[in-house]
């Protein structure tokens, strides 16, 4: 990074740290923060979509669909989410390979599960074993992101289902009295009004999602926890930057990062709540109206 970094062993404390904190592996460490932010950016909308589908499905009048919706919404009750994370990562991978196997090698006659092995034909491997390393990493990352989306979709489905029920019944009855169909009532009356009721739950969910991001480490992604452990471990004098075990300080930095992130989110979400309460027939909206008058 800097020119004076050519021989770190001769440096004073301050320039030594300047060099140390800007060397190659640290740049990877800083990039992994982007990995986490990217996870949040993808997971939040996808999970919201899953949640919406799940909540709408549980309201369906067609029984099997409503059962599936209910099953999805209640899936996260009672069972630790970490179990779901560990489960889906393997299950999704195997499901994809199995489907691909059925398409690519229809004439395969050996069983796929052989004792402790899961064997599909070479052409059905995802990604192909000849694929470069980065393909494997990207694939793993997206499996992890999809797993997060499924689990958080179930949480979001819970919140949205509650929000849909919180919309005053009279509103829906009025829509019916105007001769709207079920579908019209849903899209034109229910959905626009439900967000203010969903917001506290969704804000809460966002905070939880932020705090769940270190679990990426468990799913085999090289995230900030991975790098904090890697970089913090003690380095002997064979390395360019020898230092004792600094993992404590690295994790302290992560702690501060998360505290700052949740604090900023809190402030932003409070602002959004104020904005959305404007003109609503809720206690918050009423308070705003009185304050203005």
């Amino acid at each position, binding site marked *: 990074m800097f020119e004076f970094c050519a021989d770190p062993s001769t440096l004073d404390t301050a320039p030594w740290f300047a060099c140390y904190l800007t060397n190659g592996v640290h740049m990877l460490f800083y990039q992994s923060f982007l990995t986490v932010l990217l996870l949040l950016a993808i997971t939040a909308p996808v999970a919201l979509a899953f949640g919406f589908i799940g909540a709408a499905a549980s309201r369906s009048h067609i029984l099997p669909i409503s059962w599936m919706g209910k099953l999805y919404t209640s899936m996260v009750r009672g069972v*630790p989410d970490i179990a779901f994370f560990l489960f889906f990562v*393997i299950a999704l991978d195997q499901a994809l390979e199995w489907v691909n196997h059925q398409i690519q090698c229809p004439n395969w006659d050996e069983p796929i599960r052989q004792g402790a*092995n899961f064997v599909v034909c070479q052409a059905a491997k995802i990604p192909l074993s000849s694929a470069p390393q980065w393909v494997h990493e990207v694939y793993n990352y997206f499996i992890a992101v999809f797993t997060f989306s499924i689990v958080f979709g179930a949480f979001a489905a819970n919140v949205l289902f509650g929000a849909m029920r919180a919309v005053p019944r009279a509103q829906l009855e009025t829509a019916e009295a105007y001769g709207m169909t079920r579908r019209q009532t849903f899209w034109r009356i229910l959905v626009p009004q439900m967000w203010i009721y969903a917001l506290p739950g969704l804000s809460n969910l966002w905070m939880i999602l932020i705090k769940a991001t270190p679990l990426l480490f468990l799913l085999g992604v090289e995230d900030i926890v991975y790098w904090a452990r890697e970089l913090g471990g003690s380095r002997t004098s064979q390395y360019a930057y020898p230092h004792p075990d600094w993992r404590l300080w690295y994790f302290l930095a992560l702690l501060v990062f998360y*505290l700052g992130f949740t604090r900023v989110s809190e402030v932003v979400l409070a602002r959004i709540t104020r904005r959305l309460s404007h003109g609503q027939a809720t206690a918050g909206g009423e308070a705003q109206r009185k304050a203005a008058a």
Partner: protein
Amino acid sequence: MSCWETVQAYAFRSLGYGERLLPRGEISLCEQVTLIGSGMIWNIYFGVLALFFGFFFAVTLAVAKNSQAKWARKPAEWFIFVFRGSPLFIQFFLAYFALVRLPEEIGTLDISWLTDPFAKAWLGALIVLFLNTAAYAGEIFYGALRSIPKGDLEAADAYGMSGFKRFRRIVYPTMLRLAWPAYTNEAIFLFHATTLVYFSGFPAFRQQGDALYYASYFADRTFNPFVPYPIVAMFFIILTLIVITVFSLINRRLNRHLPAERRARVRYRPNLIR
């Protein structure tokens, strides 16, 4: 090995009794159920103890956060903010490295005999869980303190109660009653959080781990996630039902003086990962 022999060999494996080697090769369903069930002992141990000790600390924190005095309010606010604002996973790592590094850092004085137990899961992780649940429950109790009906407090004043007597007779029971449904969720959630312990730095000594530790062991061995994880799910659903039953009974007792329709029901709303 018949199933009964398996139970004898592995039922207390997580505590270090019975067969030393974990099953390998062909792994039967019975072995998976027994060993994962054996791991549940740790989940229950962490959950029950952290909840029990955390309760008292949480009440203290709530009272401190509600206090007028700055010296009591500020530390409580900060404590709750730090533990609720950061991931439990990071807290575990941080605690582990702090406890492992501490004896090495203070080189001149050998205090490893003192810190060694803290670097092990049974005590170190328990303390982190205890502090964590105290912070979450403290916030719940604080919210309940704020929503105690004004009339109740005025009535207490009118009777001439003050200080600790007012707290013990009026504030505390009402706070508990109002907070109980939310606190039930917190309890369930704490039991779920115990599954993180052995994935977060604390080593499983001689492969003595919790339910999820064994489940992931089996999933790695058999490469088949469709058996061990549903078993874990089943155990946890049973545990959750037990927790809900116990807490509902307490809730009924807390609400026993109220007319039926004003009683708050314990409704499990899952939210939170920490």
